[in-house]
C-alpha cells in the first residue's frame, strides 16, 4: 500500500515537472554575491559552474538558479523558501557562512530537500542536528583549527590565541586547543566586526608568546594583519586557511608573507583533477582559484557523479549515490564519514611570493584521513 502511494506521488511529481528522457535536476544556489563577503561567494559560484561546464553532457540536464543572500540570514531563509516553494528545486547549495547555513539547512532538509555544503560546517550540523539529506563537501569548521593546533604543538612552546567572540570563534579556539592543549600564552576574544586591534596587539606584545594563532575572517583579518605589521611586533602568525586564502592575500599584501596556515587543498597539490581545475579556472576567469572555488568545484562534481547513478526524485537511491563520493576530487582522496562530513587530509601551507603574486604552497601534512570530533554525537542511521 505504502509503495503504491509513493509510486503515485512520484508519477505526480513527474507529471508536474514534465517527463524528460534524462532526469533533470534543479539546483538552488544561495550564496553571497554582494557586500563585504562577496568575494567568497563569487569564487564558490564560479567554481561550481566551471565543474558543470567541464562535465559537459553529463551535466546537460542540470539547471542552476542562483540568488544573492547579501550575507544576511533572514534573506537567505526567504530565498530558500522561495526556491523550495516556487522554483521547486531538488538540491540547495552555495551558502558560505555558518550562521546562514544554520538558518537555512535544518528546515530545508526537514522539507525533504538535499543540501550540499560548499563551505560552512557548523558543529551542530555535524553532531546533534546531522541529517541524512545534508552532505558537507567542504570540512567541519573545527578541522583547519585542529590542524594548526597540531602544527603548533609540534613547533612552538607558547602560542597566543585569538578569535572573535561568536560561535565560529569559540569553535576555532576549542578546535585549536583540542590538539595543542590548554597551556596557551594567552587567549583573547575580540568583538565581531572589530576594526581596531591596538589593545589586543599591546597584550600580545606583552605576553612573551613565541607564536600567534588567529582566526579573524574577512575584513577583521585584513585590518588586523595591517595593524600587526605596523606595530613592530614580530611574533610569527599562524592561522586557518580561510584567513589567508587566495581571495584575501592581495588585500593583506606583504604582511602575509611567511604565514603558516592550514588547508585541505592548495593549488600546488599534485593530482590530475587539481591540475585540470586550476588550469581551466584560470583560463575561464583569469585569476587564481581559492579554496572556496575548489570546494564548490568538488560539490558540483559530486552531484554530477550521483546523477549518473540515480534519479534525484528517488531520494533513497540518490542519497546512497552521493554517499559513495565517487568523483575525482581536487583534494585527491575524499570520502564521507558516518555523519556525511568529509574524511580527508589536511595540509600546512605557507604564504609565498610566486612571481609577484602571493599564494600558498604546501609544506607539510598535518593530518591524514582526518575526521571531525562530532560524528559520535550524530544519531543518523
Amino acid at each position, binding site marked *: 500500500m505504502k509503495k503504491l502511494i509513493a509510486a503515485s506521488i512520484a508519477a505526480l511529481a513527474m507529471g508536474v515537472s514534465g517527463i524528460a528522457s534524462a532526469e533533470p535536476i534543479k539546483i538552488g544556489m544561495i550564496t553571497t554575491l*554582494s557586500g563585504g563577503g562577496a568575494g567568497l561567494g563569487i569564487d564558490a559560484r564560479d567554481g561550481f559552474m566551471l565543474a558543470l561546464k567541464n562535465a559537459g553532457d553529463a551535466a546537460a540536464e542540470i539547471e542552476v538558479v542562483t540568488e544573492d543572500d547579501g550575507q544576511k540570514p533572514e534573506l537567505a531563509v526567504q530565498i530558500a523558501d522561495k526556491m523550495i516553494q516556487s522554483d521547486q528545486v531538488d538540491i540547495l547549495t552555495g551558502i558560505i557562512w555558518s550562521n546562514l547555513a544554520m538558518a537555512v539547512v535544518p528546515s530545508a532538509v526537514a522539507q525533504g530537500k538535499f543540501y550540499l555544503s560548499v563551505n560552512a560546517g557548523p558543529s551542530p550540523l555535524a553532531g546533534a542536528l546531522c541529517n541524512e539529506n545534508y552532505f558537507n563537501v567542504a570540512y567541519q569548521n573545527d578541522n583547519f583549527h585542529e590542524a594548526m593546533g597540531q602544527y603548533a604543538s609540534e613547533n612552538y612552546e607558547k602560542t597566543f590565541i585569538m578569535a572573535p567572540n561568536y560561535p565560529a570563534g569559540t569553535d576555532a579556539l576549542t578546535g585549536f586547543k583540542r590538539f595543542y592543549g590548554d597551556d596557551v600564552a594567552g587567549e*583573547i*576574544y575580540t568583538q565581531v566586526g572589530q576594526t*581596531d586591534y*591596538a589593545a589586543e596587539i*599591546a597584550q600580545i606584545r606583552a605576553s612573551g608568546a613565541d607564536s600567534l594563532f588567529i582566526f579573524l575572517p574577512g575584513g577583521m583579518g585584513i585590518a588586523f594583519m595591517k595593524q600587526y605589521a*605596523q606595530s*613592530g611586533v614580530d611574533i610569527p602568525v599562524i592561522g586557518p586557511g580561510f584567513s589567508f586564502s587566495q581571495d584575501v592575500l592581495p*588585500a593583506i*599584501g606583504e604582511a602575509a608573507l611567511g604565514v603558516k596556515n592550514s588547508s585541505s587543498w592548495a593549488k600546488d597539490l599534485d593530482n590530475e583533477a587539481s591540475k585540470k581545475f586550476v588550469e581551466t579556472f584560470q583560463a575561464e576567469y583569469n585569476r587564481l582559484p581559492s579554496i572556496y572555488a575548489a570546494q564548490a568545484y568538488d560539490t558540483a562534481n559530486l552531484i554530477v557523479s550521483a546523477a549518473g547513478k540515480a534519479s534525484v526524485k528517488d531520494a533513497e537511491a540518490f542519497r546512497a549515490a552521493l554517499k559513495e563520493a565517487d568523483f575525482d576530487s581536487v583534494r585527491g582522496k575524499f570520502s564521507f564519514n558516518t555523519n556525511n562530513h568529509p574524511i580527508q587530509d589536511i595540509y600546512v601551507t605557507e604564504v609565498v611570493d610566486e612571481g609577484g603574486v602571493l599564494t600558498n604552497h604546501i609544506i607539510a601534512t598535518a593530518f591524514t584521513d582526518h575526521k571531525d570530533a562530532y560524528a559520535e554525537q550524530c544519531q543518523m542511521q
Partner: protein
Amino acid sequence: MQTALFIEQILNGLQLGVMLFLMAAGLTLIFGVMGLINLAHGSLYMVGAFACAAVAAATGSFWLGLAASLAAAAAAGAIMEILVIRRLYERDHLDQVLATFALILIFSEGTRWLFGSFPLYLDIPKLLQGTVPIPGGSRYQLYRLAIIGVGVAVAVGLFLLISKTRLGMRIRAGESDREMIGALGVDIRTLYTVVFALGAALAGLAGAMVGALQSVQVGMGEPVLILAFVVIVIGGIGSIKGALVGALLVGLVDTMGRFLLPQLFGMLMPPSQAGLVGGALASMLIYIVMAFVLAMRPQGLFPAAKG
C-alpha cells in the same frame, strides 16, 4: 612590562577617544547651531575615507588623499545641506531622523555603486610608519600618536575658532538665539551651510585617518556614528567641551574595559570563560556608563543652554 602595557592601553584609549571627538564635535556643533540631528554623519566619515583611499591610490600620496578627504567630505556636507538638510530645520526630530536615515541608504548604496563591494586599501604614509619608544620600555606606533596629535590640534583649533573669530561669534549667537542673528544681518543660510560643511570635514578627516589604520569599506561609518551618539549624549548635546570629555571617557572606558574585564573575570573563572564573559560585558560597558551618567544627569555632563 605591566606598566608599559598599561601606558600603551591608555594611549590606545586616547587615540580612540580623539577619533570619536572628531565625529562628535561635528554632530554636536550641528545640533547646537541648527537644532538638527544628523544620522548621515557617519556617511560623511565614509566619504572622507573613500576619497582619501581613491586619491591616494591614484596619485600615490597619502597627503593628497588626506586633503581630498577634507574637500570631498566638506563638499558632500555642503551639497547635502543645500539639497536636503535645509528643508529640515523647521521640522520635528522625527522627520530629521527619517530623512537622514534615507541619506544613509543613498550614500551607502551609492558608494557601493561607485567603488564596488570590496574594501579599498589605504596605507599609512611612509613618514609615519614605524614605532617610537614609550616609558616603561615598550614601543608605540607613531601613526597612532599622530592621530592623537591631530585630535588635540583640532580641539584647540575649534576652541579658538569659536571663542576668537567672527565665525565663532556667529556660531555662538546662533546657538543662543536664532532670530537675533538674523536681525544682526548675518546671512543665516550661508552660516548654516558653512557650519555643516565644517562638521562634515571633521568627520571626513576622521574617516581618512582611521581608514589607513583599518579598512575602507561601505558601512564603516555606522558603528562610529553610534559611538559618537553615546559620546554627545554623555557630554551634553550641543557642547563642544562635553564632546571632548565624553569622547575621551568613552575611548578610555571602551579600551580599558576590553583589556581589564577579561583579566578581572580571570580571577573568578577559567581563562577561556573569562574571555567570553569579560568580552561580552566589555562590549556593553560604554552603554552601561551612558545609562549611569543619564540616571545622574539626564542632560549629560555639560548641558548646553537649550536642548
